């Protein structure tokens, strides 16, 4: 056997004084790290396959386990980090493209953390959300301002299709296939209870979930998986996926081994075949083609449903957004470069795209400069991590946010970033029946509802502090924001002043 | 309502508890020849072994009669049922009137006539608290004990006396032990196990003649003893019902409500004939659970709520010297056998049903098999491989599991 250059990334630390050899770690590890050795009468670990998903740590009833980074060190090198070296070894061994999952983990600046919020003092009162109404209901869609009054003084106006959100938070696209059926059920039920929407992703909609249609956004992606009339009719809105923050410019690939009976039916492709979404929509090579698809989908659904166009945040996002705002679409969803994925080439995930904060700021300003902000609602995603991020996004100009990674965390995901292996120990990014069952939607949906409720409470607290009692008065209210530690260029792009100004 | 119960063991307690499920106030009188609070007859061997104390031999708590409003007449022997006047006549001539009468008289040891029996220095049966108390008072370390009968009672006696380091010999006419519950192979495993603990067996022969301290066997051997225990079987106490004109065959005949052929007279326990659902035959099922449940059913009927006793089958849970046996049903049918050391399993199938089983050694969860026999579960509905592997709920379909375990009925 050749030399294995790859070191285990992690060490399993087991406290023998605490281990009772119940073997729950062994039973729960899909990577088969733990074993009971009857000769030694103790648990042993093969760390090479450990991904640090923390399932064993979490379930160990005596807290006997710890997973920590392997202390083994290559010789220190400021340029050639151990990770870079490991990747070279990996590729020298495999000859393949490096694959990763979930969002870009690199230490790029997080602009959310460099923006501070305002609060009222003296000259106007903060509002206590426990005593006064505090509103977070949000409408998404074109906002046609025209109105006239008939001879009886009755207002006459036209209504554009819209989405109505009780909280300005939706669950962004994750396909059935990339995540499990139970994960989909969790999202659907949570969206229903929360009065918001989840997104099918590009994998179609399982028949069992048609009943959640009123809270479902049906995605149409370049692979067109599972897209047919009834699917489009079932959802509350249609999303055309042009790109994804985690992998701008490339398509998707769900390996055939994950295409089981149910996924095959839902995606309308043969069992066991790879599901490959092309990088572009082959009927959209330009903006006018997009307009045709938007209008076709509207025509197909009787002009009753808002159409969302989702793009990855790339360098000229503002111009693209301007085009989309004039395409007939009702909502634009922009996905930042930290957005998650079930699988992406590592280099793309870590090096392509721009931060959502900057993309949002420039898109919102551009649309206002062109006087077309009303044509379209702006939804942003790609690492909205907490309620403060939501507040900052809305104040920068977003109508609502998409969350996905946070939603998965609520379900138990520990961001081990191994979704692509299909062996998710938390039952989320897997199709293995024994693993899928680990995600009990009864528990998970309540956790997800709790999370969003908690965020909603916090959003209301922060709004109240600013003296704002309705989310629409926060939208685009950049005076409520100040930058900290940002350059003038960054401040200009964000359209905010520096703290102290 | 005036209830009278003759007898004070499991069937009697079942009757009391059955009556009280329905009728909280009616008068209940218990007439018992034995002068004890109700005690568990099977516990006498454990008592003799010292595993059960005087306090714990009792089948129900000391306040059982008080709590259930029961009047007791201990040390009183019923000699006659006067159906005309609806009363029980006692040996002292007193009469006890009843509205509903329970005959739970149980059985007595069968002692066959044998030559020279009257010469035996110490001869006991093994059926009552008094009998083991008498044995206890005589037994000493090294005592030579001859047990006649290698059935359940004889071997339980042997196990108990082994605690006293007695020198035990068991003689039985049959050529194997426990023939009523074990097949040849299982009997042989158990025999070896018991022998390994020091008990000797002389099988296939019987006593030709006793003298004071020895027995000459028909096969020519002689066995010396300090004590003889006769454990060849029991006979139901049916006289009271028979004398009153009630229908009696091998035991008292009852209908499904446990009523005898006499009006307002019920019977339960070892004195009655039961219907074995596994073999569809009538037989005496001298088993404590059976006695209790018959009593309970009878009690409910006596108190006016019609209840039927069905699905009785022969079944035994017993162990000797740490080797446990659980058996149930009948052994007539197609067999599946597994053997591994002291572990022995036999499953008997007939008519697409599990009819009976023997588990020895590993007896875990045997009740699942028992329920299959009692509930006549079609083998088509179970996973046969799992069934053969071990008793498990997994062998049933999801729907049945949900019904059984989840309380979800579809």
């Amino acid at each position, binding site marked *: 056997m050749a030399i294995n250059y790859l070191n285990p990334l992690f060490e399993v630390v087991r406290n023998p004084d605490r281990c009772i050899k119940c073997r729950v770690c062994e039973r729960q590890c899909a990577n088969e790290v733990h074993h009971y050795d009857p000769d030694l009468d103790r648990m042993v670990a093969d760390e090479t396959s450990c991904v640090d998903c923390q399932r064993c740590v979490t379930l160990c009833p005596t807290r006997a386990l710890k997973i920590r980074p392997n202390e083994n060190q290559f010789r220190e090198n400021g340029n050639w980090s151990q990770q870079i070296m490991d990747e070279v070894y990996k590729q020298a061994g495999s000859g393949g493209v490096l694959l990763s999952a979930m969002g870009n983990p690199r230490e790029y600046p997080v602009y959310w953390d460099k923006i501070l919020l305002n609060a*009222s003092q003296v*000259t*106007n*009162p903060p*509002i206590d959300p426990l005593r*006064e*109404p505090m*509103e977070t*209901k949000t*409408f998404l*869609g074109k*906002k*046609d*301002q*025209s*109105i*006239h*009054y008939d001879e009886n*003084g009755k*207002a006459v*106006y036209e*209504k554009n299709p*819209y989405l109505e959100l009780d909280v300005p938070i939706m669950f962004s696209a994750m396909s059935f296939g990339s995540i499990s059926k139970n994960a989909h059920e969790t999202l659907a039920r949570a969206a229903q209870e929360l009065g918001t929407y989840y997104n099918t992703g590009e994998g179609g909609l399982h028949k069992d979930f048609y009943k959640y249609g009123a809270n479902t956004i049906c995605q149409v992606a370049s692979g067109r998986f599972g897209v047919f009339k009834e699917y489009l009719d079932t959802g509350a809105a249609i999303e055309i996926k042009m790109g994804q923050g985690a992998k701008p410019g490339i398509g998707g690939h769900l390996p055939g081994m994950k295409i089981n009976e149910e996924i095959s039916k839902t995606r309308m492709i043969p069992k066991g075949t790879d599901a490959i979404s092309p990088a572009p929509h082959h009927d959209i090579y330009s903006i006018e083609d997009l307009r045709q698809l938007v209008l076709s989908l509207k025509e197909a659904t009787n002009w009753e449903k808002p159409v969302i166009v989702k793009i990855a945040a790339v360098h000229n996002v503002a111009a693209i957004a301007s085009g989309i705002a004039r395409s007939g679409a009702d909502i634009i969803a922009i996905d930042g470069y930290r957005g998650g994925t079930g699988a992406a080439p590592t280099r793309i995930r870590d090096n392509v795209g721009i931060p959502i904060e900057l993309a949002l700021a420039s898109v919102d300003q551009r649309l*206002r400069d062109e*006087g077309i*902000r*009303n044509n379209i609602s702006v939804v942003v995603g790609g690492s909205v991590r907490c309620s403060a991020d939501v507040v900052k996004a809305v104040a920068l*100009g977003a109508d609502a946010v998409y969350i996905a990674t946070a939603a998965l965390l609520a379900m138990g995901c520990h961001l081990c970033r191994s979704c692509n292996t299909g062996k998710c120990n938390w039952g989320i990014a897997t199709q293995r029946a024994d693993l899928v069952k680990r995600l009990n939607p009864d528990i998970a949906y309540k956790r997800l509802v709790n999370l969003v409720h908690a965020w909603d409470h916090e959003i209301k607290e922060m709004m109240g502090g*600013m*003296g*704002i*009692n*309705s989310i*629409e*008065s*926060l*939208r*685009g*209210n*950049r*005076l*409520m924001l100040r930058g900290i530690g940002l350059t003038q260029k960054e401040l200009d792009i964000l359209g905010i002043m520096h703290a102290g100004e | 309502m005036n209830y009278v119960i003759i007898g004070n063991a499991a069937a009697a307690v079942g009757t009391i508890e059955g009556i009280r499920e329905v009728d909280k106030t009616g008068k209940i009188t218990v007439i018992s020849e034995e002068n004890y609070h109700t005690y568990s007859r099977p516990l006498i061997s454990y008592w003799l072994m010292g595993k059960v104390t005087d306090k714990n031999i009792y089948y129900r708590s000391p306040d059982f009669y008080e709590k259930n409003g029961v009047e007791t007449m201990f040390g009183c022997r019923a000699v006659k049922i006067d159906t005309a006047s609806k009363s029980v006549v006692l040996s002292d001539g007193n009469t006890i009137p009843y509205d509903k009468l329970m005959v739970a008289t149980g059985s007595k040891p069968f002692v066959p006539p044998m030559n020279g029996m009257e010469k035996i220095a110490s001869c006991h049966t093994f059926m009552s608290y008094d009998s083991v108390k008498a044995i206890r008072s005589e037994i000493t370390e090294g005592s030579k004990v001859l047990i006649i009968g290698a059935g359940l009672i004889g071997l339980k006696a042997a196990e108990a006396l082994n605690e006293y380091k007695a020198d035990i010999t068991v003689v039985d006419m049959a050529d194997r032990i426990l023939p009523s519950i074990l097949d040849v192979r299982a009997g042989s495993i158990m025999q070896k196990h018991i022998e390994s603990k020091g008990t000797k067996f002389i099988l296939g022969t019987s006593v030709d003649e006793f003298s004071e301290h020895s027995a000459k066997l028909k096969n020519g051997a002689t066995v010396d003893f300090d004590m003889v225990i006769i454990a060849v079987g029991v006979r139901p106490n049916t006289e009271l019902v028979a004398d009153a004109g009630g229908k009696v065959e091998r035991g008292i005949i009852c209908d499904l409500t446990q009523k005898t052929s006499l009006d307002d007279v019920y019977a339960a326990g070892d004195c009655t004939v039961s219907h074995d659902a596994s073999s569809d035959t009538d037989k005496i099922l001298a088993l404590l659970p059976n006695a209790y449940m018959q009593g309970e059913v009878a009690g409910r009927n006596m108190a006016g709520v019609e209840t039927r006793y069905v699905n009785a089958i022969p079944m035994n849970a017993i162990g000797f010297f740490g080797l446990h046996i659980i058996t149930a049903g009948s052994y007539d049918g197609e067999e599946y056998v597994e053997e591994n050391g002291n572990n022995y399993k036999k499953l008997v199938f007939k008519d697409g049903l599990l009819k009976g089983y023997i588990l020895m050694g590993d007896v875990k969860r045997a009740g699942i098999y028992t329920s299959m026999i009692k509930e006549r579960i079609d083998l088509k509905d179970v996973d046969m491989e799992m069934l053969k592997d071990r008793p498990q709920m997994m062998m049933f379909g999801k729907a049945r599991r949900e019904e059984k375990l989840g309380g979800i009925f579809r």
Partner: protein
Amino acid sequence: MLKKEGETRIPAGCAISGFINRSGRRTNGSVIVNSIACMHDRSNGLGGGYAGYGIYPEYKDQYAFHVFYDSNEARIKTEAFIDRHFDVINLSRIPTRKHPNITDEPLIWRYFVNPLPTKLQESQLDERTYVARCVIKINDKIDGAYVFSSGKNMGVFKAVGYPEDVGEFYRLDEYDGWAWTVHGRYPTNTPGWWGGAHPFALLDYTIVHNGEISSYDANRRFIEMFGYKCNLLTDTEVITYIIDYLNRRLGMPLEDVAKVIAAPFWSEIDSGRFSPEEVEKLRHFRNVYSSLLITGPFSIILGFNNGIMALNDRLKLRSMVAAEKGDTVYVSSEECSIRTMSPDVDRIWSPRGGEPIIVTLDK
């Protein structure tokens, strides 16, 4: 160096007062001056101002521009602009009275103008939009010039100082109007700039406002999409533009304007007290005009060509009382000020948050 309005956003507390006579009877300006004088402590001497309606009956068909000039140069530039776009019927300095507390006054001029028909036609705008655009243009483009009043048969008078002093300064006892509003200012960080005093006016819309709206930048960034330019960064300015947009440009009656800017809470909309049709409209308003919702404390009196509207924010975070005496309706931050104008009113009440009081001239 302190920044003035337009360079930074200045929150301010204030007092407001106003009244209207429904039958169009004109009342002397001294009445409104007295009403604000009694709320002296609500101002801090950094701004006061008035709007009077019906004060120029002799020029009732002309737009009356009141203009501050920092310099003659600015005046010359502005007058050239006005000449290019309007036919000037009359021009003069606005008469003032020397007052010890009013200092550093700019040049204050008044023009009664008609739009030049050719220019108006060229612009393809309706007349009022044309005038508004011109006013916005002067204010935005000509350094040192500021048109602070531009309606017909009405005028705004404002200055840095206590409002009662401002009233004397402008000799309001020499004007009679069927409606008056007044504002006393308590800004927290301004050096005091005459243009920054209230009322804020565009055409005949004037706003006096007490409050500090928390929705300011959301409103500003939205309304600026429609050709407005919020130079002053003040609440009154953006509120005026919003009302101008909704009322004048979209044609929305003031009752509905109130339902946009002080929209009922969802809990009220869903409470069942509105008809299904009304619920549908309110939902539509909250969807489509959501960026024009004003949150945070405000009490405003809007003056317009034939009436006034008083409105509180929907939580009523600022005081405002209203009263009626005969055919006159009074609105003020405090009851005491109403009592100075009419000691024994027929009815006095505290309007609920979000419920407008709209009073117009009888036909």
